[in-house]
């Protein structure tokens, strides 16, 4: 069996899941949301973005909605994506895993501050 593409979850896929947590978005919307939530550090290119979307769709972590226009961006029809409950659960598990790392980092005095 080939290696599962989302195990471990790549950070691009995780960011996509996070970006869809509050609203359904199209590809460009996801890209902008990810850039915003990472402070501009992660700008997904089309190859990475759609590869990740493809993998997430295959595993049913997100679903594709009917194409529609985005009034802001003109009259082109766009594919929208929505987080599934499985995707939400996966994002939560990943967030917990990262939070666990942060706790360790804090106990080892590598990370200071008390939020997260």
């Amino acid at each position, binding site marked *: *069996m*080939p290696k599962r*593409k989302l195990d471990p979850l790549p950070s691009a896929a995780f960011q996509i899941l996070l970006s869809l947590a509050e609203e359904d978005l199209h*590809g*460009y919307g996801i*890209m902008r949301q990810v850039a915003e939530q990472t402070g501009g550090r992660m*700008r*997904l*290119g*089309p*190859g*990475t*973005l*759609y*590869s990740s*979307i*493809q993998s997430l769709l295959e595993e049913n972590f997100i679903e594709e909605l009917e194409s529609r226009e985005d009034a802001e*961006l003109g009259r*082109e029809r*766009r*594919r929208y994506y929505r987080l599934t409950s499985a995707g939400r659960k996966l994002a939560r598990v990943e967030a917990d895993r990262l939070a666990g790392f942060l706790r360790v980092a804090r106990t080892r005095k590598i990370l200071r501050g008390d939020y997260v």
Partner: protein
Amino acid sequence: MSEKIYSLLLRLFPCHFRKEYGEESLQLFRDRARHEKGFAPRLRLWLDLLSDLACSVPCQYFRAEPELVAVSGELSGATPSFYFMGDESPRPGALLLGALLSLTALATFSTLLSQGGVHKPRNASVRQLRQSAAPPAHPRDVAGDKNSLAAGVNETRASSSFDQDDSGNSTPAAPNEVSTAAAVPIAHGNVDAAERQRVLNAAIANLKQHYIYPDVAQKMAEALLANEKRGEYDAFADGDTFAYQLTKQMRDVSHDMHLELVYSQDALPPQPTKEQTPEELARYREAMKRINCAFEKVEILGHNVGYLKLNFFPDRSVCEQTATAAMASLNHADALIVDLRDNRGGMPNMVALMASYLFDHPEYFYNPRENTTQASWTHSPVPGNNLAGKPLYVLTSSRTLSGAEQFCYNLKMLKRATLVGETTGGAAHSGVWYRIDDHLGMGIPETKPINPYATPDWAGTGVEPDVKVKAADALPTAVKLAQSKLQKK
């Protein structure tokens, strides 16, 4: 513009990705391009895109196809079998390119295989080389044609002399003619002990001074001296036999067929000087003019077959115009017959000039007398020349010698011509000529030219024709061959 570039770059992705997300990717690009204007944002956009391509293109190719996953389950323990993974038929362009590449590969292989016969590895034919190095049965064969040797060598040394016929009469009025004619033939070939001694010493000195491999020269000298000490030469009062014995012994040691000692009953011309005097040149020009530079016949035969009879290869610097005019008048022939049956050789520069008309690209023309140089290549293509691809027949006889054999040998090796007639005379004369006295001289190779063909050159053996007929029948045979070839077209 930039969208076009990106759409081209998108073609790097595998087909299944492009089909599914190609349009989306372009849309994303358009959106970003619309919002990220100005130099810096645009630069950042392209950097993003390029790094994205570098990461995601390989990933896409390594993605496991869903079909493959399904198949891999079925494969365990089953007999080997093929599965067709593609979900669409290839583009017509790809099919065409594939067909073209297959044909090219096929053609290349078959060409290489058919060439294999001629281009054997050099080591493969050592036995053949040894055989040909064995001295011929009779001294005359060893010497080949003494006059043409002397003359042939002069070509290298002095660029002044031309091959002469067996009787010693000069065919064209070559500059050395006067001295040759003036010489008085001596009584049949006797050499006394004093002369033998003198010749032996001179031969040894020449070998040591001029032969390309000094160590081999030393060995040859030792062998000759040892033989002399044993009194082996005392019995050879006849010049021919003496020269033959010395040649044989030099070759036994060196295995070099180009090394020879030659006895001439007629007095040999004086050692040629490097430069021609103006008088010699003027005399030569005059002689060439009288005989049309040895271009005896230039005709168009039936079925538009061109016919050229060339009786020796004159100096290019004097006869280039004549040669050019002759070739121009044959330019529209559909096939060409070059008659070298009476051609005794001549200047390598004219051999190269004539050969230039026969190819559409420069070809290496092996010449046993010279190192590989710029002049070893034909000057093809000749502007305006139509003869490069035309069927070519070269007529040969046992009187075809030296430079004419060079012409035949190279055309045969390059598979450019069909040789019709008799085996040629076998006069390679690659040595530089050293005159010892009035009747004895020797050819010593001073250079090691590269013969690109595994088979030995024509020295002593001649060039075998492709179609063996009597010299007298060569022309009608070649005409028939040419006409039937043209009719088949």
